């Protein structure tokens, strides 16, 4: 058992199915949102029939942050009735984010936590793969939430740490930071130049909660809406800074991006900034006030004349 770090299937799935069935049978919730195995890999599933709870799975392909279904923008999900959501430790940070910003009541949702030891970067696979430096999602490295908190039910055995990816997100950010200004500009304008403005990054984000997004405001039009490098820069910068100190690093924006813009690098840089300047790390504690919207009298101001 030296290779437990690469166990492809996580324990506790039987408990997960039993709890889901009991919740539905008791009428405590109307729908369970979890993952199922489909032809192209794991995908989110809504289960409302107790007989179908055996569909639920949890393995290394379950990359999705299902907390996005609790986003108040998705009122069609809330209309289904009370929800039980299956969450990994990292996903709980997004729940905490919604609680912190009063977008969700803790009693509105039942959380079934699953103990996770990391997920794959590429999840569209017919079977779960073991985690290796080549296959692990880079965001799993250094995970500090393998034990989900805030949950009503917790299943599975404690899992070992995920392996270190070939290149960590921090290493990629540091590599960019080490380049001259002009090369960073060239890198990001090329990346943003690819953007087709589908707004998948916004749609999938559990914490992009505005009812009307600034990008859809036309009088005045703050962000040019056609896909060209200038408007794309404005959009991508705006999306990133609106998540400053709020982003939970679930990586869904980058995973959903159809043109492969490395949004996790922007997000990670913002996390570094708020940590260095305000000693703030986004956590699973809903009481931990976010840094933007808060202030201290002695905040750094070395950039101000």
């Amino acid at each position: 058992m030296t290779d437990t770090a690469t166990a492809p299937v996580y324990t506790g799935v039987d408990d997960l199915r039993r709890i889901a069935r009991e919740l539905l049978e008791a009428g405590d919730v109307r729908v369970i949102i979890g993952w199922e195995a489909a032809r192209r890999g794991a995908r989110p599933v809504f289960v409302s029939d107790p007989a179908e709870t055996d569909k639920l799975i949890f393995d290394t392909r379950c990359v999705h942050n299902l907390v996005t279904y609790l986003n108040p923008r998705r009122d069609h999900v809330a209309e289904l009735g009370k929800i039980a959501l299956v969450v990994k430790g990292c996903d709980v940070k997004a729940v905490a984010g919604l609680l912190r910003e009063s977008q969700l009541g803790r009693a509105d949702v039942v959380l079934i936590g699953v103990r996770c030891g990391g997920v794959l970067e590429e999840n569209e696979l017919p079977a779960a793969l073991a985690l290796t430096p080549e296959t692990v999602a880079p965001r799993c490295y250094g995970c500090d939430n393998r034990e989900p908190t805030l949950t009503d039910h917790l299943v599975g055995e404690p899992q070992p740490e995920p392996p270190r990816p070939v290149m960590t997100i921090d290493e990629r950010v540091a590599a960019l930071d080490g380049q001259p200004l002009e090369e960073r500009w060239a890198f990001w304008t090329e990346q943003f130049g690819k953007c087709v403005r589908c707004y998948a990054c916004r749609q999938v984000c559990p914490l992009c909660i505005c009812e009307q997004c600034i990008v859809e405001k036309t009088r005045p039009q703050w962000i040019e809406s056609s896909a060209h490098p200038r408007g794309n820069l404005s959009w991508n910068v705006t999306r990133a800074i609106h998540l400053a100190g709020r982003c939970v690093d679930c990586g869904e924006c980058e995973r959903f991006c159809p043109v492969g813009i490395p949004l996790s690098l922007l997000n990670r840089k913002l996390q570094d900034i708020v940590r260095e300047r305000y000693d703030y790390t986004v956590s699973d504690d809903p009481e931990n006030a976010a840094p933007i919207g808060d202030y201290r009298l002695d905040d750094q101001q070395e950039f101000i004349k």
Partner: protein
Amino acid sequence: MTDAHTDFEPRITAFVCNWCTYTGADLAGTSRLHMASNVRLIRLPCTGRIDPLFIVKAFERGADGVIVSGCHPADCHYTSGNYHARRRFAVFHDIMEFIGVDPRRMTFSWVSASEGAKWKDVVNEAVANVRELGPYEAYRALAPEAVELEPSGHSGAEVAS
């Protein structure tokens, strides 16, 4: 208005708060202080009202540099607007630098209503910095081809308040 010795006159947009910096700039004017005339002021109620998107928009519309200025800490007319702005612009400053915007194109300052002389220095330094960096061609190159931007100079009616 143009300096005969150079062919580049930076176009700088300044977002200032109503209570301190705007009044300070007014004092600089009534005191007949000599300073560069490359700055267009946009007066807002408070630095807390200044969205980072304003700065992005200024660059989009052809600004070569921007200034954001308001009341000193503890002096905000609305008690805490400048404290909130300080955090917001710290984050914005750092992330813009990360994506390759030269921080010397973005000047942040506290200028009180009595600091006409400081406003003069802030303006002169910002203009000198941007003059050294040259026109912001890198940002203008992002413009869609169909849109013709005005050449850098003093015809920027849209940029001026």
